[in-house]
């Protein structure tokens, strides 16, 4: 079993939370996993990104040059389309990312307006969870189990933010269903 994803966006978009949840979920499945955030520059407001790897074997580098699955959440981050492998999957947040370039071959490019979907659902804070669900639905890192997801979210968010979990799960599921329907 081996899975890898790279997620990039602007600070505040909850990109790291997405990666954290995937990794935590993998741990709950007793798999090896690494979560590697960017901490590229000592200042605020820039880009963030993270790489998540899941494997049933020992994981070498937590940093990859090219990745099977890439999610781009903001225009600023679209320089990272280069991260996707030939034949990989590239998911774009089309609410913000209006144009992009990708020179890799055979990449499946999927666009979803995650911000708009969240606004439609009346909660701009769940944008990232819709995107996460969508990614999951499309790439299926592991079988989706609501209990485990709950546990993963709790593990990452902590008791103090427990109250947000139901709405996050809901958003995840919305995205997940959207992703599952995607034909690739």
């Amino acid at each position, binding site marked *: 079993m081996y899975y890898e994803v790279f997620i990039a966006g602007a600070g505040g978009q909850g990109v790291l939370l997405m990666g*954290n949840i995937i*990794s*935590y979920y993998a*741990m709950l499945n007793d798999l*090896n*996993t*690494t*979560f*590697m*955030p960017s*901490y*590229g*520059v*000592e200042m605020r407001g820039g880009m963030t990104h993270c790489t998540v790897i899941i494997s049933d074997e*020992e*994981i*070498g*580098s*937590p*940093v*990859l*040059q090219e990745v099977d699955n890439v999610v781009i959440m903001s225009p600023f981050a679209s320089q990272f389309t280069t991260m996707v492998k030939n034949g990989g999957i590239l998911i774009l947040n089309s609410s913000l990312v209006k144009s992009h370039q990708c020179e890799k071959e055979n990449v499946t490019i999927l666009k979803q307006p995650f911000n708009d979907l969240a606004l439609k659902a009346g909660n701009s804070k769940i944008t990232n969870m819709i995107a996460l669900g969508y990614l999951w639905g499309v790439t299926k890192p592991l079988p989706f189990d609501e209990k485990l997801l709950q546990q993963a979210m709790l*593990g*990452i968010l902590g008791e103090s933010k427990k109250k947000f979990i139901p709405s996050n799960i809901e958003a995840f599921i919305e995205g997940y269903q959207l992703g599952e329907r995607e034909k690739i």
Partner: protein
Amino acid sequence: MEEKKIFEKGNIAIAMAAIAAGCKYYFGYPITPQSDIPEYLSRELPRVGGVFLQSESEVAAINMLLGAAATGARVMTSSSGPGISLMQEGISYMAGDELPAVIVNVSRSGPGLGGISPSQGDYFQATRGGGHGDYRTMVLAPHSVQEMWDFTIMAFDLADKYRNPVIILADGMLGQMKEPFVTRMPEPIPYPPKDSWALTGAKGRPGRVIKSLYLGHLELEKHVWKLNEKYERMKKEDTRWEEYMLDDPEIVVVAFGSAARIAKTAVKVARQEGYRVGLLRPITLFPYPYKRIRELSEKVEKFLTVELNAGQMVEDVMIGVGARSKVYFYGRPNGVGSLPTPEEIYNEIIKTLKNEKVPVNEF
């Protein structure tokens, strides 16, 4: 302590492990990419009745470490690059004073202000003593978050065993990445009691002194040889390394820390493709596993050293190898984007096998 599986950053693993090891005192100054450690401890140490103090500088931090260690308390500081440089005078004093303490270097890239991306450019500083005079510090190099936890606990024991500072040499990758780790207690390393030397007030006994000044005839020489004996004992009793796929290799990759972790994938892939490659991963950078390298050099023709720098540990590989084998080097000296991928290391292995690289130990 109850064993739990936790998903956290390497930095947090170090901070948690320090508390698990009984460290109640931390002195340090913020610097990326290790500030999680002071931040975590500023919250948690007061909860266990300990003291977190943000010093006014790294110079002050290392001297607070010295002061606290002199009382016999378990104590830690952490920093990175420039901050560790500023600590060199203090580290030299601590080694001279024979004071145990743990110093964490979640190294960044340099020289100078450099950058904060992962690098192994502080290898020389850590292993050769960046400070003045004849001394050594023990250096442990973790390559996973689990080892950030394990080695921190071991580091306290080793510091107390040898009455010597122990450095944990990590980097931004290991500090910032999260992976699951188990909050286990590694096999304890026995160490002598501290009440024969610690400064606690001269109750019912004459005053004591902890110092590194020796002006009497031959006094300092004696002291240095005494320290040296300790270092020799470290070599004998606590040289540690990991061997990975080292059966009958035609080439040995030597790498530590993050570089070793990335190299492991490369080695595995190469093995899968039928190349007889193995990895030797030094865990203690001082004492260094020269002996094991010498043994290997008697049967293996090629050693490929992989480092996240422009070539530092490769000198130790050369010392161990002698002229028996050829030593090759692949370095990615720090900086954003320069962390090598397993593929790149794999390519270097193949190039080395195909004699497309020039050995570095033929002057």
